[in-house]
């Protein structure tokens, strides 16, 4: 038996390691625990918690499986695995050319050809999580700030801040105008940062928005770009849900805005993308950074060494996404199915007396439960959330975990389950609302 010495006050880990900026203490993740402990199953656990806090896209897997069944020779390494060696050795941080080409094409198709992408400007990272962190390392110094419109994806608190030491200053948006980003809000955020002695290095938007489930309008995108130009800062557009817009015409990418301006001011613009949502492949860790700035591309590429995409995965996806017929069909069908799901949940919620923000994209809807709050505060929201989690047994995400400035909003995912499960979830909500009506009548 080895001798273990009495541990002295054990040697301290880094400040980053000790900090809570990983964000896992947020209720966003606490709900998952309840789900993990008692997960709903259509057959084996019908009273379990239904996971509606995970923005996954499970509606189009059959299309992917069909592709693989029809093309397995090409996408695996073929009979006798002739390409295996080359693939296993390929660690060039430029990434497989065929894969970058396929990604560029895919991104163009999603935007209906209204923007063009140069494969040599595509930098590969292991997921959008890595892409956002990497860009932050490149665009800002520790202690600097990025402006992010609220409500925003809770993961940004970790991705943009944890290891980078960069701060997030919120651009407050509210329901009075459907949470749109206004020039006044942008300016107010900038001033707020200045008053805290923080140097603002950029604005980071998510378009389509998570958690709102809506696209940003063209005029707003122009305002944001003008603001970035005026302040001489960067603009990062996370377009991870671009392929999940229900109707292709409703999504306008920052790439189109730039094209309309003849790429003037493009060197401050960077786009983040991933296949985790549109293609439903979060496990494969496929993220990209597309930058119009050569220095950013070069540096990002070097930094991607820490987080490259497995060449095995690059190979598979290069095959799949170079198949034009497949991608056309996939994009179209995926949109239709998501639209159908969205309609289903909106109608269902409406029947239960619940309103949502008008959405047109994403894997979730932004539900308004503010009329149900005991008090119009974050506390009131968390109390309601607890009831929904533990009594109604639905894991949904409270708006406060998305830094929403108005209490009572909740993000509800609808694409990570079967239609049957969604129906069960809606039934539970309906029942819950009925019971509350009875209670309030009796009071």
């Amino acid at each position, binding site marked *: *038996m*080895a*001798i*273990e*010495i009495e*541990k*002295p006050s*054990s*040697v301290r*880990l*880094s*400040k980053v*390691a000790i900090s809570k900026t990983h964000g896992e203490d947020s209720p966003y993740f606490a709900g998952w625990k309840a789900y993990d402990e008692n997960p709903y199953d259509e057959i084996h656990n019908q009273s379990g918690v239904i996971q509606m806090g995970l923005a996954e896209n499970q509606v189009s*897997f059959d299309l*992917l499986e069909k592709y*693989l*069944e029809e093309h397995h020779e090409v996408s*695996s*390494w073929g009979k*006798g*695995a002739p390409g295996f*060696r080359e*693939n*296993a*050795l390929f*660690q*060039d941080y430029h990434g497989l050319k065929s894969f970058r080409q396929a990604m560029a094409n895919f991104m163009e198709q999603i935007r209906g050809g209204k923007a063009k992408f140069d494969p040599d400007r595509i930098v590969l990272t*292991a*997921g959008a999580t*890595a892409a956002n*962190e990497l860009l932050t*390392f*490149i*665009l*800002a*110094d*520790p202690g600097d700030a990025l402006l992010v419109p609220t409500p925003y994806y809770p993961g940004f608190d*970790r991705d943009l801040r944890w*290891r980078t030491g960069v701060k997030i200053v919120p651009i407050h948006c509210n329901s009075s105008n459907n949470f749109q980003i206004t020039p006044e809000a942008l300016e107010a955020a900038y001033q707020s940062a200045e008053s805290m002695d923080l140097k603002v*290095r950029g604005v980071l938007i998510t378009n389509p928005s998570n958690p709102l489930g809506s696209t940003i309008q063209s005029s707003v995108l122009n305002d944001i770009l003008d603001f970035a130009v005026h302040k*001489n800062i*960067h603009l990062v557009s996370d377009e991870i849900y671009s392929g999940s817009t229900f109707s292709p015409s409703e999504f306008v990418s920052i790439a189109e805005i730039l094209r309309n301006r003849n790429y003037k001011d493009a060197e*401050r613009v960077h786009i983040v993308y991933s296949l985790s949502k549109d293609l439903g*492949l*979060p*496990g*494969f*860790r496929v993220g990209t950074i597309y930058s119009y700035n050569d220095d950013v591309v070069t*540096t990002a590429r*070097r*930094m991607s*060494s*820490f*987080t*490259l*995409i*497995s*060449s*095995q995965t690059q190979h*598979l996806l290069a095959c799949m996404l170079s198949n034009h017929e497949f991608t056309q069909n996939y994009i179209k069908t995926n949109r239709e199915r998501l639209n159908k799901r969205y309609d289903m949940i909106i109608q269902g919620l409406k029947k239960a007396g619940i309103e949502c923000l008008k959405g047109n994209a994403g894997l979730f809807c932004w539900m308004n439960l503010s009329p149900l709050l005991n008090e119009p505060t974050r506390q009131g929201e968390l109390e309601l959330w607890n009831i929904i989690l533990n009594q109604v047994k639905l894991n949904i995400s409270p708006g406060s975990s998305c830094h929403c400035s108005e209490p009572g909003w909740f993000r509800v995912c609808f694409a990570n389950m079967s239609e049957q499960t969604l129906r069960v979830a809606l039934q539970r909500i309906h029942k819950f609302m009925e019971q509350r009506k009875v209670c309030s009548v009796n009071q």
Partner: protein
Amino acid sequence: MVAMSKIATGNGHGENSPYFDGWKAYETNPFHPTERPEGVIQMGLAENQLCFNLIKNWLIKHPEASLCTPQGVNKFKETALFQDYHGMPEFRQAVAKFMGKVRGDRVKFDPDRIVMSGGATGAHEMVAFCLADPGEAFLVPTPYYPGFDRDLKWRTGVELVPVNCESYNNFKITRNALEAAYVKAQEANLRVKGLLITNPSNPLGTILDRDTLKSMVRFINDKNIHLIGDEIYAATVFMEPEFVSISEIIEEEDVECNRDLIHIVYSLSKDMGFPGFRVGIVYSYNDSVVSCARKMSSFGLVSSQTQHLIASMLSDGEFVDNFITENKELLFKRHKYFTWSLSQVGIGCLKGNSGLFIWMDLRKLLKEKTFAAEMELWRVIINEVKLNVSPGSSFHCEEPGWFRVCFANMDDHTMKVALLRIRTFVLKNNEAMVPLKLCRPSSLKLSLSRSLSRRMEAPGIMSPHSPLPQSPLVRART
């Protein structure tokens, strides 16, 4: 112009090192046995290409290991959705088992201590983020892998302080050297948080003996600092003495060790030859580090598609046993042939028993004992002999004249061509060389053609700062 961060605009990416310079020469004129037989042979890339036949045979027999085949596609959906940063249990179990087998089953690894990362590159950065604050330091014995300067320092702000090792005792890491480095750090106002060792060593191709390992463990416990053991070449030990892992040392009777200080970095890039698959592992005996690293691994998870493949492959005990044995045999043969051929022309190497390279001694070919002379010799080797080898200075070696030469990233034919070129070069220079004591300064120069010396002065070729149009990390073409 809108500015980037200091990290982005600085040189922390490390690509200005001569380590990457030789790649440019290779890239503009890569050797090909038939299409470009006069091209530069890549000997600066530590890749293991010797075992692919074994692996391919396994893949053909196990189509279910791929998600793309009819036999594997039923696992596609659940794998594609799996993004849990704990990693697939089967993957962790298979990797733990593999790591144990590589160490002759003398130790067991706990699958729950295995944390994924984006290759060992990602693993090292992640460990640095966990253990040290910006401005703090790790001690690293020289010579060391040039990538450490980027991996440990670039985005973390951590410093590296070299522990000087010298050829007189075969670059052994002595307690004195460790102490001296520690003091030097303190004098520079750097707080030391850990010691990073690579065992088997890159670039030396040697393993650490038991006494040295124990001495290190004592040292880090005395100073209450971490020990990070990069064991990425663990399965490449092809000859006696047998590999001793840090994981074995801490289990020994007479070793007192706070296990919270011990962390291992691993990867499948070298042992298996899968650098493209980005399978990096952090194995820590410290629960807090495991927990923190696991959260950080979100920034560099292993593709679930790859986890699935590796889980299948490495849980096949028979395949693994065969692989480990065959890998050693092929490396042994290659190494033996290589070192023997070099010795035939009077070129010695550090006596090594592991790794994918040899540490070649060209001190006597230097016109003077300086790094400038080493660089000059290196340029000749690249441009005249047409071999991309790595100069010792890029590994922070304290003595000029040493070169790392990789031998496992090419086929037999290419190896023979490379050896022939070395042989020709050495014999040619033996004629030109004059014994030191009889020479006048001018005749100390290696024989260089006029055109070559003009080329050496031309801008763009010699500047170590010329930006690379492409990644130095290109795939080897044999």
